């Protein structure tokens, strides 16, 4: 199994702690002497203090606590301490004087010191690391805490394997919208399919609806969703032959849906800088009605902007959100200002006759957690078996997992399935079901909440292309540390002049990106098997 850098670091850390807490060789601190000469000799040899016990032939024991000496003339051991009988009842305490010939065995004990050093050191280092990470996360909550509801087909999965994330940009009631996420082909044995929604962030999730779209699939068929939320039945997959980015060939990163992603770091001068990726597909047998299928997600850049905006609002966050709610133009500016400046993943197709790139359209979906798989039907007519495609995208904003060409057979209409049961902690929750099904009602999900939505899928057993539709909005919880970041002018610049904001914020973001992005995403385990992933 190939381990990521972060996993290895953690493994080494654990190994280090195991090593320093390990005490393979026990120390022997106790010695026994049957004759006085060897006791005296040993005591002179040792510099450290030795505590003496004299075990008498009658079973008594005399323990010299403070000082002791051997009187070789009178054959006595003298000192201060305590005396006990054979059942260890105390006989006396204070000055002791015993005849050497009454002693069966002398016992010396070294003082036991530093026995806990290694364990305390290990706990100290661990505490230091914990505090450092805790301080980092509390001062950079953008880096450590997620956003929006996450959905899991397997409820045991963690956020790295989220199958969908709902309405990522709906950070206030007026921004509520419905979001469609591809769940990829799933074979459903029985007539039911369930998905679990988790609130894994410091947010209140206000969920209006959760629905399932299921398309039965025949052999070699797929259904893809377009950025305009239209659905296309597709056949024939043309795998990527070659991909080149500014760093060189990246074909291996984009050929498979294996979560080995291609991403780049942001431009340190301007966060709206763009870059190009060139793709080549060969052996395209049917160049007519082609579409480009892309599996992608965002980096943490947009999450950074959302948290930054909240920080700039400081203690006026309530007032500003009230203004957003009552003014469409403010909401529109906040929602689309930076988004427009950052741009989409624009798709161009090479026209060999015109010897020019022809713009098709673009992909855009907010959210750094779950992958989005969408298709973009080519608007230009394409000929030839070799197809060249160019992606133009923001530097540092996108993570691309897989790209392929496919033939679009026809546009298909979705059948939307309602939830038939909602469970919370394994128990049917009729109120939650009523809230999800009611048009004007909302299911409120607080941090730590998990809801399981169960759908009845007609026609099973059968393979389906599934999509999750989730509608609602979420309220980000204001963190105390953010209030200190209040900067209304910066907020105004972000909303009114996003182009300038993205230039001026580049340095701060790069710092965040350096300290956070790499470690966070390197921590993903990229060898997990994803049976729900189409290949």
């Amino acid at each position: 199994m190939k381990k990521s850098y972060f996993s290895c670091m953690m493994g080494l850390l654990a190994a280090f702690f195991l090593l320093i807490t390990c005490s393979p060789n026990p120390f022997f601190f106790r010695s026994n002497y049957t004759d006085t000469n060897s006791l005296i000799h040993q005591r002179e040899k040792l510099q450290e203090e030795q505590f003496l016990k004299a075990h008498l032939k009658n079973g008594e024991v005399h323990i010299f606590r403070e000082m002791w000496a051997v009187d070789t003339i009178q054959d006595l051991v003298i000192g201060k301490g305590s005396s006990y009988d054979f059942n260890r009842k105390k006989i006396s305490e204070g000055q002791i004087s015993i005849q050497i010939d009454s002693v069966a065995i002398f016992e010396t004990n070294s003082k036991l010191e530093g026995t806990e050093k290694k364990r305390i050191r290990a706990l100290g280092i661990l505490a230091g690391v914990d505090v450092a990470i805790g301080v980092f996360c509390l001062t950079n909550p953008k880096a450590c805490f997620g956003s929006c509801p996450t959905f899991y087909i397997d409820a045991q999965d963690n956020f790295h394997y989220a199958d969908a994330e709902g309405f990522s940009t709906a950070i206030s009631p007026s921004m509520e919208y419905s979001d469609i996420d591809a769940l990829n082909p799933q074979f459903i044995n029985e007539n039911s399919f369930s998905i679990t929604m988790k609130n894994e962030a410091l947010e209140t999730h206000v969920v209006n609806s959760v629905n399932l779209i299921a398309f039965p699939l025949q052999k070699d068929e797929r259904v893809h969703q377009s950025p305009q939320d239209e659905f296309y039945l597709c056949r024939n997959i043309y795998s990527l032959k070659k991909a080149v980015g500014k760093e060189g060939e990246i074909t291996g990163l984009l050929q498979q849906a294996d979560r080995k992603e291609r991403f780049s770091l942001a431009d340190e001068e301007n966060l709206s800088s763009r870059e190009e990726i060139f793709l080549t597909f060969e052996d395209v047998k049917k160049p007519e009605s082609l579409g480009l299928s892309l599996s992608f997600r965002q980096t943490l850049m947009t999450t950074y902007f959302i948290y930054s905006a909240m920080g700039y609002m400081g203690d006026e966050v309530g007032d500003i959100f009230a203004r957003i709610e009552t003014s469409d133009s403010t909401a529109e500016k906040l929602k689309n200002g930076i988004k427009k400046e950052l741009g989409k993943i624009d798709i161009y197709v090479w026209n060999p006759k015109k010897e020019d790139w022809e713009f098709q359209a673009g992909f855009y979906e907010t959210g750094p957690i779950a992958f989005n798989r969408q298709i973009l039907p080519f608007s230009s007519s394409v000929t030839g078996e070799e197809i060249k495609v160019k992606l133009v995208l923001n530097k540092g904003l996108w993570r691309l997992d897989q790209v392929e060409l496919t033939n679009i057979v026809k546009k298909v209409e979705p059948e939307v399935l309602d939830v038939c049961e909602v469970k919370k902690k394994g128990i049917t929750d009729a109120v939650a079901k009523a809230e999800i099904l009611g048009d004007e009602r909302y299911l409120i999900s607080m941090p730590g909440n998990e809801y399981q939505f169960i759908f009845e899928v007609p026609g099973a057993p059968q393979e389906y292309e599934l999509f999750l539709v989730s509608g609602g909005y979420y309220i980000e919880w204001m963190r105390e540390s953010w209030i200190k970041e209040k900067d209304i002018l910066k907020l105004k610049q972000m909303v009114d002049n996003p182009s300038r904001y993205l230039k001026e914020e580049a340095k701060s973001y790069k710092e965040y990106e350096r300290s956070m992005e790499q470690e966070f995403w390197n921590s993903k385990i990229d060898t997990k098997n994803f049976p729900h992933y189409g290949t």
Partner: protein
Amino acid sequence: MEPKPLILILLLISFISSCSAPKYVPKLEEVPFSAYGSHIEIKQLSGAEIEGELIAVDSKTLFVLTAADSIKKLHNLPVSDIEKFKLTYAQPKSYAWTIPVYTLSTVSHGYFALFTAPVNAVVTSVVTARGANAFTYNEQVMSYEELSKFARFPQGIPPKIDRASIR
């Protein structure tokens, strides 16, 4: 944290917390001044288990004073019948509290808790387990001859003492 790992950690804590030695086993700093023998747990080849204060050891027999239901009794155990033993000469230091405290502290780590929580749980569990076994010896590191140093009577039971009267 999910319920199952939490239950496992709580069980581990309660198990490790229950691993303290009897009262006659001295604290670490009192070991040089203790008049009693060390605590010994013995597993015999027959599968029988016995534990108590180590009274004496000779070449063929271990003498162990047990205290079942407050009734003290001296047992003679042939060395040849002993499969293994664990001797505890000082009260172990308990680090069990570090398991929940350290592990729960990772809630402030956000996404990183996915990695730091298990690392904290593992490290503190190892520290706790090693702390619980820090002041022990077993048959792999100590011979029966050396074991006698940790008996109440390292010289052997004095012949004039009535063995039945040993308490």
